[in-house]
């Protein structure tokens, strides 16, 4: 049997990698930087250097790019083994600890150069031996390469890589583009990175502001916010320095100047040992922290093969917890020392803050008093509410709130609108924690709590109620009478959530037919058992008292038809077709009666 070898089409492989593994075509800049930094790390580990890495890049235009480092360089057998073997890496050191020092764990990095260049021209001189020869490795995109003795020896040990742009890729070699790529990927690297362009020599690496000394707190704040502006183009509200032992992480979170929602995905900028990993990290901060955007440098988390996110292991979770803790500590400190800033923050970001408060009892205990709520007396902070009301009264849905608001106000009380996502959970927790009474209010319970009328009054209004029941019966509503304020309100329409839903269904059914009418019937079937709506007449209202004296049943019927619909309209309940008909019939009937009646009994009652 003859053994064959798989023919690997290098071009095809590179194509595949560049489409599926590398995030963007300028990833080669990152790979070259990585190799340069790693080469220096190897030098340090071999005990041959104490200095920081020094990387020189030359982008003089004309489609040529030169990367030069003063790292450990390569000997001939190393070149064969590592540069040209996919997947193998000189950086797969024997012991795990030093392996962590190498950024590049995967040997496919150099292939990224073939995305933009047809040749990779490497001159390298090993530091392992004195007077080591300078070797030249010239690799081609078709998979062939040659190693020769270089006719341009390097003065010092290290490696120089020269790329020449493929047609169609020359823009990646423009000096401005190279500068941007170097700055994006490498500005935080622990290396001296110098770029020479036609404009001259420039240092690209920088110490990030959270690792620098600043003359004053104000200066630090200025520097941090400037950094945030530079990274994200945003004028942030504030900054929070962050740190985690787990994962070896440090950096800063910036507070967004605009409101956000939970659904939006995080997009933090994360560096791995100073090299940019991704601008779209979403695993490092807890999910409630959606009001900040972070820049973080990570030393000790394992990246995935694509080197664009991390392995989801226990260390990552511990890191996330620690970073979250950093944010909550900052919030606590703010609550203690700078209320104005906290209020500004809450005004903008109350959704995430409330979400956190719902989950974290201690945090709720701290910021609870400052949380903003909508109430029947306008927006107010929780502490203001608590000062005014011994009981926490709240409406469970926005609709319920709207219905109860005039009643509650008329009673001189205040209720909170807890119809928004976390509000009622927070109120419940607070009530439990502080042993405060909690009372859910809705129109039905309020109406039930209205004062009953005495026996005489009840007898007085019985005829009214009977006629009202007859008018209301087709609308699944019954009449009752109570006394309540405001006295100017003749009647109140109250429907449970189930009944309101059934009303909506019936209204919608007016437009549907066939299949969808049946679907809606099915939908309503579980709710029909709910008690119907109630029209509660107010015995304290003069109009009701006069209606109670109307003897002409026909007249009373018409009056009640109009009053019923008016009550619905005032409560902003949408009318069904039947109810719209009712008001027409009612008014027409009243007009006819008054025309007939002249100065008779019916006419008098209309004044």
């Amino acid at each position, binding site marked *: 049997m003859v053994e064959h070898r798989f023919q690997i089409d290098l071009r095809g492989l590179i194509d595949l990698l560049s489409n599926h593994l590398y995030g963007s075509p300028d990833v080669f800049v990152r790979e070259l930087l990585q190799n340069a930094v790693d080469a220096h790390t190897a030098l340090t580990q071999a005990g041959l250097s104490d200095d920081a890495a020094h990387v020189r890049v030359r982008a003089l235009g004309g489609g040529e790019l030169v990367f030069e480092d003063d790292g450990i360089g390569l000997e001939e057998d190393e070149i064969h083994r590592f540069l040209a073997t996919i997947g193998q890496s000189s950086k797969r050191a024997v012991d795990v600890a030093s392996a962590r020092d190498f950024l590049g764990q995967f040997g496919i990095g150099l292939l990224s150069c073939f995305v933009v260049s047809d040749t990779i021209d490497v001159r390298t001189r090993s530091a392992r031996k004195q007077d080591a020869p300078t070797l030249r490795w010239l690799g081609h995109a078709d998979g062939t390469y040659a190693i020769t003795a270089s006719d341009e020896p390097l003065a010092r040990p290290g490696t120089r890589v020269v790329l020449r742009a493929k047609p169609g890729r020359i823009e990646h070699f423009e000096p401005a583009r190279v500068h941007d790529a170097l700055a994006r990927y490498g500005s935080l690297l622990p290396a001296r990175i110098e770029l020479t362009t036609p404009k001259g020599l420039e240092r690209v690496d920088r110490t990030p502001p959270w690792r620098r000394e600043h003359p004053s707190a104000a200066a630090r704040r200025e520097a941090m916010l400037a950094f945030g502006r530079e990274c994200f183009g945003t004028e942030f509200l504030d900054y929070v320095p962050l740190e985690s032992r787990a994962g070896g992480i440090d950096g800063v979170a910036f507070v967004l100047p605009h409101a956000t929602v939970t659904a939006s995905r995080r997009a933090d900028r994360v560096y791995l040992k100073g090299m940019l990993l991704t601008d779209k990290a979403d695993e490092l901060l807890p999910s409630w922290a959606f009001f900040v955007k972070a820049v973080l440098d990570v030393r000790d988390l394992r990246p995935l093969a694509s080197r664009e996110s991390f392995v989801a292991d226990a260390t990552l*979770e511990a890191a996330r917890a620690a970073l979250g803790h950093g944010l909550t500590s900052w919030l606590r400190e703010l609550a203690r020392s700078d209320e104005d800033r906290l209020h500004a923050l809450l005004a903008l970001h109350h*959704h995430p803050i409330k979400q956190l408060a719902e989950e974290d009892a201690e945090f709720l205990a701290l910021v609870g008093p400052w949380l903003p709520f909508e109430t029947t007396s306008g927006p107010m902070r929780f502490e203001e509410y608590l000062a005014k009301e011994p009981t926490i009264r709240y409406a469970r849905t*926005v609709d319920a709130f709207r219905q109860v608001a005039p009643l509650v106000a008329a009673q001189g009380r205040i209720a909170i609108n807890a119809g*928004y996502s976390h509000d009622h959970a927070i109120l419940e927790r607070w009530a439990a924690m502080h042993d405060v009474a909690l009372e859910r209010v809705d129109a039905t319970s309020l109406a039930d709590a209205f004062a009953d009328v005495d026996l005489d009054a009840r007898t007085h209004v019985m005829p009214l109620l009977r006629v009202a029941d007859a008018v209301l019966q087709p609308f699944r509503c019954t009449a009752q009478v109570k006394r309540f304020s405001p006295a100017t309100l003749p009647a109140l329409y109250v429907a449970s959530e189930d009944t309101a839903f059934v009303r909506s269904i019936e209204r*919608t059914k007016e*437009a549907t037919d066939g299949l969808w009418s049946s679907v809606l019937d099915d939908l309503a079937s579980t709710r029909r058992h709910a008690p119907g709506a109630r029209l509660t007449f107010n015995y304290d209202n003069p109009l009701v008292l006069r209606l109670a004296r109307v003897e002409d049943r026909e007249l009373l019927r018409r009056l009640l038809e109009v009053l019923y619909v008016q009550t619905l309209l005032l409560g902003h309940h949408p009318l069904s077709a039947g109810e719209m008909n009712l008001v027409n019939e009612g008014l027409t009937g009243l007009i006819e009666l008054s025309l007939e009646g002249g100065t008779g009994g019916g006419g008098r009652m209309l004044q």
Partner: protein
Amino acid sequence: MSWREELARIETELDRAVPAPTRVALLERAIDLSDANASRDDGWFFRLELMSAIYHTGDWDKLLLHFGWCIAAHDADPERFPDYDLLWKYKWVINEAARMPQIARARLVALVDDMERRFRGAGSTLRAVHEHRAIVMARIGERDATREAIALWEVASRDDLSDCRACDPDTLADTLHLIGETEGAVEVARALLASRMTCAEIPHRVHARLLASLVARGEHDAAADHHARGYALCRRSDKLVEAHGHHLAHAGRVALDDDVFAMFERHVAGALRYPAVWDRMVFLACARLAFGAVARRRQRHLRHGLPMRLPDEVRIDDRDAPTARALAAWADAEATALATAFDRRNGNDAVSRWVAAIV
């Protein structure tokens, strides 16, 4: 303030970043105002927005209600009220209607047929139709019909109306799970997770559904990993009631007894309120399993360490400090009652048997 002014205020509010339940409340108000003032164009517009917001809150009964209005508006005036957006949402409608036992079996079948008719009218590839026929057949306990629909679904080509590449396999895994093809379901789920594709609720639901199978196969480490990652993703969502249930069941299976009580307390209110009864049924069956396991570990008198806050609907003795056994019994009764409701709808006992097998 006139109604138009109020509508304008609502629209401004909606433009700001507001959480989904708030959007729903605002949009319902806008719809009421539009209807009260007979503005059909406004009613249409706000209903489409509302249905999109409902995707995040899970108020599925409202979805059906407003979808009904929209489909009727389209049928009455197709030029003015085009159906493209509705076709996409028809998928959600059918998926959720199948999970409500009050929607009759004949209705579900007719809805899929109606969906097919409209999709054909729109020139669609019908991939989504086959998918949803499979979903419906699985929930009404018709295994053979489900398998037929799956076969058609898998070969139909994709188009704009088909589910995305992440949601599709997740639905397939769920459907296979429903008809008892657990091995197939696990394979599909694992492949989906390996692909690292994400969507709004992928991989949240995938982790949850794998747990029982992994434990049954003895892959305890993998199960623990999926439990940790999956629960972190789903715990905060109001919609992922089924996933909450599966994680709760897992905690019970692997003797994380404190977690069983804590997770139940955290999620039961949401589960009891959730409009899709199916999900609630699964949650309750999982709670039965979890508390049953706790009770069997000779902890039948184990009460939660701290007083529990349980909603009124949890009708058991001593609600403030319930025993595992009492909770298991209550959950069992509730789950069985719901399964029976589905059986009545379906005209067979497929759902009861499926629920009983959640062990």
